[in-house]
């Protein structure tokens, strides 16, 4: 009954602690900042990377980097743990609440950055990047996704952007050409559905915010602007509203009927295209495998998503993952050095070869597009300049509350007019910014 006795002891400890803690909510013990933490030059460097369904190629590259690092730093062992993307919220919260179980270096999604920084989780790497020569070649708009309030908290590891997938056989049959402007995109989608009513002109969804944002940005609008220390929503102002309305035009019976499309997400939009139900969709370089597995395989091509102006490229949302150093680390110098190694050009090239992850260095992007024609439209989209969501923890809330999908759905279903829906969205965004 050793376990039994341990159980009793454990619970008794809890009760004791409850009494001792007293009458305020529990908190973690304060995390040591850079100033009072030690900076060991040896020992175990703990690294968290995201797990992948097919992890072997990623693991091989990382193991190679770790071996290189260990031989350059005697007495150092790199311990890599793989974290499921879907469990990241709990994992990182646990790491921030219990620094002892936290890693030194971690991979994470760039949309999570603002929340992690607000929680005091990551160290400012601005000075470290400034003294790193390779960092000069980082694509500026991608490096922006690692910044909060002007400080850089991570280095971009790879980037993902979306472009326009279209069915070459359908376009040929109907004598169409890939659209060269947002207006032409809507027109083309309508003509396809008119002549091929079994297809959606383009499959996009009310919940596919990353497909909607390029329309909003290319119309000259933005999600929010800085006003001193605060953010103020701008989605109810004319250019943004026009962009959202343009996108909502796609969610009509004559393109992609709201009954089916109002609830579609990014992956269900791509799924409909892959299943042969749509003539076009908005998809990322990371969606290629799904499309190639469906009936659309071999019958599609990709071009950058057209913007408002004829021949322009709509600014894409720059998704991707970053590598950062945790603020509570006791091996800051080593952690920064390993981050530079793994996120450097050499290993980004290897990661592209292993996993198809688009590099974050402009010169490297151009290089990989040469060898892989499929990557061309995505690299061109990157080159045309990407945008990002407001770097504030409030964005996580706005995203969770489905503020923008709700507005798009309201316009698409006719529940509200565009001015009403965008005004309501702006109010909810502002409430989130204030809280």
């Amino acid at each position, binding site marked *: 009954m050793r376990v039994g006795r341990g*159980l009793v002891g454990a619970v008794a400890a809890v009760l004791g*602690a409850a009494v001792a803690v007293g009458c305020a909510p529990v908190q973690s013990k304060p995390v040591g900042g850079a100033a009072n933490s030690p900076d060991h030059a040896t020992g175990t460097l703990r690294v968290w990377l995201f797990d992948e369904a097919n992890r072997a190629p990623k693991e091989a590259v990382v193991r190679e980097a770790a071996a290189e690092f260990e031989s350059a730093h005697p007495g150092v062992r790199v311990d890599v743990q793989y974290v499921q993307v879907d469990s990241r919220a709990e994992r990182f919260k646990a790491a921030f609440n219990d620094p002892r179980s936290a890693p030194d270096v971690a991979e994470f999604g760039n949309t999570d950055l603002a929340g992690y920084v607000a929680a005091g989780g990551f160290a400012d790497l601005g000075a470290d990047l400034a003294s790193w020569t390779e960092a000069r070649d980082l694509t500026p708009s991608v490096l922006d996704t690692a910044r909060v309030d002007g400080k850089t908290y991570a280095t971009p590891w790879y980037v993902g952007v979306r472009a326009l997938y279209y069915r070459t056989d359908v376009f040929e049959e109907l004598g169409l050409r890939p659209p060269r402007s947002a207006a032409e995109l809507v027109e083309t989608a309508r003509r396809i559905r008119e002549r091929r009513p079994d297809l959606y002109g383009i499959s996009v969804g009310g919940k596919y915010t990353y497909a909607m944002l390029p329309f909003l940005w290319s119309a000259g609008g933005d999600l929010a602007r800085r006003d001193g220390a605060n953010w103020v929503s701008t989605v109810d102002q004319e250019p943004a509203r026009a962009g959202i309305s343009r996108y909502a035009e796609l969610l009509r019976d004559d393109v992609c009927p709201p009954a089916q499309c109002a609830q579609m997400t990014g992956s269900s939009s791509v799924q409909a295209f*892959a299943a042969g139900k749509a003539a076009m969709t908005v998809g990322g370089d990371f969606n290629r495998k799904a499309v190639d597995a469906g009936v659309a395989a071999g019958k599609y091509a990709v071009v950058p998503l057209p913007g408002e102006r004829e021949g322009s490229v709509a600014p894409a949302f720059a998704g991707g993952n970053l590598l950062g150093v945790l603020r509570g680390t006791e091996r800051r110098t080593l952690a920064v050095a390993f981050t530079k190694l793994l996120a450097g050009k050499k290993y980004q090239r290897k990661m592209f070869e292993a996993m198809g992850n688009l590099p974050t260095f402009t010169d490297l992007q151009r290089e990989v597009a040469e060898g892989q024609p499929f990557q061309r439209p995505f690299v061109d989209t990157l080159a045309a300049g990407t945008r990002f969501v407001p770097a504030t923890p409030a964005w996580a809330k706005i995203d969770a509350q489905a503020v923008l999908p709700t507005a798009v759905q309201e316009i698409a279903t006719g529940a509200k007019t565009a001015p009403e829906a965008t005004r309501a969205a702006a109010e909810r965004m502002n409430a989130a910014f204030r809280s």
Partner: protein
Amino acid sequence: MRWLRRPGRAAAEVLTVVIAGVVAFPLYWMVLTALKPEGEVLSANPRPWTLAPTWDNFHRVLTVSGFGRFFLNSVVVALVVVALSLVLSFLAAVALTRFRFRGRTVLLVMLLVAQMVPVEALTIPLFFVMRIVGETAPVFGVNHLGSLVLVHLAFSLPFAVWMLRGFVAAVPVELEEAAALDGASRFRFTWQVLFPIVAPGLVASSVLSFIHAWNDFLFAKTFVTVEESQTLPLAILVFFKPDQNDWGAIMAGSTLMTIPVLVFFVLVQRRLVSGLAGAVKG
């Protein structure tokens, strides 16, 4: 059951099989999806069969690194939780049914309240509790299987107590009085008479505890970050991606997760209901 009329039975049995078929259909679809090649999982022509079955999806799940370890961890956690929860909840149920004392009703309602709180709201305070526990008894601390056993035990107890209470209450008091007349101690009566009688009730509550512990994603990802203590659901989480979920693999993994529960149920059903209850009644 002799009290039933015979003529209606054939019809009832046909109906039972039809209903079983309807209930099982989504399960069949899950297994089918797991066996379909990737392009067929969602296609414009859904078919209740596949001409090109493939083990690819199962293969992807089974080769998630650490799968065997995760599986073993899950089995250990679920079985320990079921065993502890049966004993603890049976004792508590007897106390709450057979003994009269002040505050009994309050305790019973408290057990209900404990189940009403949304679990998500409790994870942060629980996390801190587990950290304190870990400082005194490391086996039960964060990152150890013991932490999962403890939380699942805590979350399955209130229900199990309520459940068993119903069964204990259904045992006629006369039986107890007769035992008392025979000179049986309360302890002996509890274990040798009462426990076997409520065995059918133990099935429902142990299956439920098992399923809760077995299928849990939330605690598994909150309290355990190291790979050696992770449980099975985390092997499936790998296939959830913000941009593109791998449904074939998720269905294969879910199929693999459902099978042990069925096995557990069949075992429990045979041992407890047919064995114990039958012995007592016979």
